[in-house]
């Protein structure tokens, strides 16, 4: 409890302040937990009740119907055709898409980012180190939305951010391009260098005394060996934090996958869930006939017991991997703290 000194904690005024602080912090915790609680509450609410304009804190008759329906929906085993057709593919397809992209990004991005940070922190010297540092973190200063269209064009004609590949000078042939658009690599490759993680790693590597690395050099370790055998074991907690952040950001990314994916069986869960939600909320159409058909199917779905409650179930499913990732990383984080000693 660094916030509160141990000495004099039993004095009445201190005690009062202590409890005020505890209540304040509890309020903060409740504020953060409430949306999560609301998701759970809504996921066990019957479909009609979930649609009512008065908010439901806890349903009168909790039911697991939505969970069962979502299970049928995601495995496409429902008898009800309207429910079955809500999603074009079983949920595990989207889940595995997301997992593949997130883990692949981690696998490539962590070594690249951490080695870049290590090189910048310990191997580069002089003004060059400052310039490359500014260059790397400069990418943090450009909002992602600004680069959305160039990035999109780049996935179409990798590595040219142009509407079409330029011609090789003197010929009519275009330069060879790699079309990563509509493949998982369109999500993985832009995530390979993560400026925020770079900053995180660099901040940590800066705290490692130069003398440790110099001692290892005198001992005869090559630069890579020093990184692998001396620096990496010291940095496990930072790797844990960085991988959790990176995993979360790829898993939760929505706008970019929405832009680059066309084929329905390649989209990640975030996009799949949002597509589903769109079908609930914008049941609009240009022709009256279509609209009528949509309304009919909506009613059918609602009668089957699926409304917001089902979306909440999907939302919870979407959060679970991040939660698991956090538990894994937390273990390493704690181990790292024990190893290095808290000072």
């Amino acid at each position, binding site marked *: 409890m660094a916030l509160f000194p141990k000495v004099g904690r039993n004095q009445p005024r201190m005690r009062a302040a202590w409890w005020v602080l505890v209540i304040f912090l509890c309020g903060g915790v409740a504020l953060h937990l409430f949306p999560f609680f609301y998701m759970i509450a809504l996921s066990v609410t019957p479909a009609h009740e979930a649609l009512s304009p008065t908010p439901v804190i806890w349903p009168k008759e909790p039911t697991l119907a939505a969970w069962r329906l979502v299970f049928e929906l995601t495995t496409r085993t429902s008898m009800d055709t309207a429910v079955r057709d809500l999603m074009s593919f079983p949920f595990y397809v989207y889940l595995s898409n997301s997992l593949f992209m997130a883990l692949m990004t981690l696998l490539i991005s962590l070594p690249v980012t951490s080695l870049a940070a290590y090189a910048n922190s310990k191997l580069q*010297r*002089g*003004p060059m*180190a*400052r*310039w490359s540092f500014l260059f790397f973190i400069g990418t943090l200063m450009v909002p992602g939305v600004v680069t959305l269209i160039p990035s999109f064009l780049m996935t179409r004609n990798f590595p040219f951010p142009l509407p079409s590949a330029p011609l090789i000078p003197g010929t009519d042939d275009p330069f060879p391009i790699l079309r990563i658009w509509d493949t998982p690599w369109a999500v993985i490759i832009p995530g390979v260098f993560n400026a925020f993680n770079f900053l995180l790693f660099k901040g940590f590597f800066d705290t490692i*005394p130069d*003398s*440790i690395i*110099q*001692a*290892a*050099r*005198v*001992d*005869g*370790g*090559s630069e890579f*060996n020093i990184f692998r*055998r*001396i620096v990496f*074991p*010291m940095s496990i907690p930072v790797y844990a934090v960085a991988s959790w952040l990176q995993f979360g950001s790829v898993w939760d990314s929505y706008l970019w996958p929405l832009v680059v994916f066309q084929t329905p069986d390649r989209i990640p869960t975030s996009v799949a869930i949002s597509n589903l939600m769109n079908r609930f909320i914008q049941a609009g159409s240009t022709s009256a006939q279509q609209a009528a058909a949509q309304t009919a199917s909506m009613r059918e779905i609602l009668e089957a017991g699926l409304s917001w409650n089902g979306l909440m179930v999907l939302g919870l499913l979407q959060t679970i991997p991040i939660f698991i990732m956090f538990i894994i990383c937390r273990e390493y984080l704690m181990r790292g703290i024990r*190893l*290095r*000693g808290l000072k």
Partner: protein
Amino acid sequence: MTQIELRNIVKQYDSQDQVTLTGYKGEPALNRINLTINDGETLSVVGPSGCGKSTLLKVIAGLEYPNSGQVIYSGHDFTEIKPQDRGVGMVFQDYALYPTRKGRGNLSYFFEVHQRTEEEEQARIKATADLMGVDFDLLLGQIPDTLSGGQKQRVAIARCIVRDPNIFLMDEPIVNLDAKLRERTRIEIKKLLRQFGITTIYVTHDQQEAIFMGDRIVVMRKGNIEQVGTFDDLYYSPANLFVAQFIGTPPIAVIPAVIENGQIAIETTRWMLPPDIALPNGAVRVGVRPEGWRLDTDDGISMAVRHIERIPTERAAFVIGAVAGAHTSIVAPVDYPMREVTRVTPDWEQALFFEAEGETVLHTPGVPDLF
């Protein structure tokens, strides 16, 4: 065995705080250094902080490459050789133990990266542990963070000697220990050095330590070597005012004086100079060591005594005060009575003479013949 020679070494500092986006600020850390360290010799390097003594060590180890000049190991040019291949052993001021490895792991890293056999590694670690003392085995099983300063320092020295280095480089290895432990470790290191007879460069800012460890002493200032020599050389015939003031505790008293036809005057007090000190007329500065004074003399200059620092173990006291406005310490008998003013005369045979402005030495007594 190894002899090291530095030729015209220039090193421009490039640590983070010295670097701006356009270049460097500040003076070079090493400015045309020429130095020879003989085989088997222990060389102490002293100087005020920031004088480049650690940089000198790093250049010798290869951790920093000089901007120009050559580093010669036993006649071979090692200037461009990586530190990995130089075969030096280095002890750092902050010990620089690998925090995730136990004591044994710290010692074994050298063998791991050199693909030595397990047997050799075990044998060398055991031999080193025997050398380092009875309880050293206990330290090998512990993570560095759980060790005390002195223990860390022992592991660091063991890590340095376990690989049988060509040269030892020690960068203020015992500065972080408390006084008593420092005293003991100093003796231990000295013992180890004598046992190995390996060329050693010992950097320190503590001149007592430098005198104790080094066969020869290098005094550095602002990237320049001011003087190289034994303690007696530095003490009795310093190369300039800086060395004279840096070496010796309490420091030398430097007092303005005027020489006129074989007579010397400090303020209004005059003395005859001994005939062997032949100096031209004019203003000078006189440097007098604490033991170079005679107390309570009839023809002496008055000294305002500030206090008397008694050192019973040495059976001596230091009378500290001011002579002609200059800070002065004088060795006296331990029972020397306290008084406001006393009369003192420099022992002119032992006095040093410097220019009135600048640092040039005009006359030194030279190393006395003790035997």
